[in-house]
């Protein structure tokens, strides 16, 4: 469309296929898709699905980087494919694979039930001794108090951070960056008093101490959540608690 300088008319995508009914291992299949300057990798995949091969499976919905469903490995890096422009990967071929470290269900679709269990485990909701009746209005929370946890509340559960964290790959039990960041999000919320419960869970096996601060989680996060930071801050709190409980065993309730 329109007049353009000399650009490749098409781009090649090497896409993971895995059809469990027919094969026991994933393979790569190459497709050609038209190159458009404003296309993202997801557009090319949709083109393939619509016009070339209807049997290619992948997840997507919002196409605006907020629903978190379209995470894949693009040239070996975890990306939201709806925010990964073809123009950044020229001349291709572009390798599109399912998110690393997760079991593959089919083609580009990975299984993420594991994450949902972990999310629930960290109690990502406001814990209170007593709910304030609605008639008494809102909990006051100043912009500064909001600012303390805001960043960690931006997680879209896209799982890119898990696909970037080698510790998760090595130790699938690891609760992992996003879930811990969300735990921290509630810990830091002035309305919540669940920090101790969560710390008990997360200082246990598979919790914060598994993380060796690889830091890749933060680098790939499309929403600047900084899970690596959340975890290190959490460790600091955990250590402080440890000292308190050892030095002042009577000081804890």
């Amino acid at each position, binding site marked *: 469309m329109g007049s353009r300088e000399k650009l490749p008319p098409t781009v090649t995508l090497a896409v993971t296929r895995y059809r469990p009914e027919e094969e026991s291992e994933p393979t790569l299949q190459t497709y050609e898709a038209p190159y458009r300057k404003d296309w993202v990798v997801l557009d090319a995949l949709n083109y393939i699905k619509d016009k070339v091969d209807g049997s290619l499976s992948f997840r997507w919905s919002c196409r605006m980087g907020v629903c978190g469903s379209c995470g894949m490995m693009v040239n070996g890096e975890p990306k939201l494919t709806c925010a990964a422009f073809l123009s950044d990967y020229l001349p291709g071929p572009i390798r599109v694979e399912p998110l690393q470290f997760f079991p593959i269900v089919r083609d580009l679709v990975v299984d993420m039930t594991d994450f949902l269990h972990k999310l629930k485990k960290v109690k990502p909701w406001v814990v209170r001794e007593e709910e304030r009746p609605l008639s008494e209005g809102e909990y006051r929370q100043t912009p500064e108090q909001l600012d303390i946890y805001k960043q960690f509340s931006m997680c879209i559960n896209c799982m890119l951070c898990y696909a970037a964290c*080698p*510790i998760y790959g*090595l*130790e699938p039990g690891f609760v992992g960056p996003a879930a811990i960041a969300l735990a921290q999000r509630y810990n830091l919320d002035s309305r919540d008093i669940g920090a101790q419960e969560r710390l008990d869970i997360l*200082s*246990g*096996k598979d*919790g914060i*101490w598994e993380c*060796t601060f690889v830091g890749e989680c933060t680098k790939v996060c499309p929403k600047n959540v900084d899970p690596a930071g959340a975890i290190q801050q959490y*460790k600091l709190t*955990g*250590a402080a*608690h*440890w*000292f308190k409980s*050892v030095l002042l065993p009577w000081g804890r309730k």
Partner: protein
Amino acid sequence: MTGGKTPFLWTLFSAGGTLAALLFPVHLFLSGLAFPLGWLEAPSHDSLLNLVQHPLTRLYLFFLISLPLFHWAHRFRYTLYDGLKLKHLTTLIAVLCYGCALIGTVVTAYTLWNVP
């Protein structure tokens, strides 16, 4: 591994890491490179000993040596686990790493105690 001692070991690791980050480059540069290569003039035995006799210096040296050893112990332990996938040897590795650091610490303390 439960929460157990980990927070404590991690604190040692962090403290050691910070000390090493702040202080090791200059020490290493001077005593490992600048003095041996004659770029700068090394302090004499006596003046050094003089310095070390000061209780504050001894305290300083105690931490300067022991904490980075624990930093190493903790970090190296995880590097072995992850880098070589040796998680199944967890107890052995932990004992070896922290054990070495502990020995180093005891020797340091003993030496500093016995400074003439």
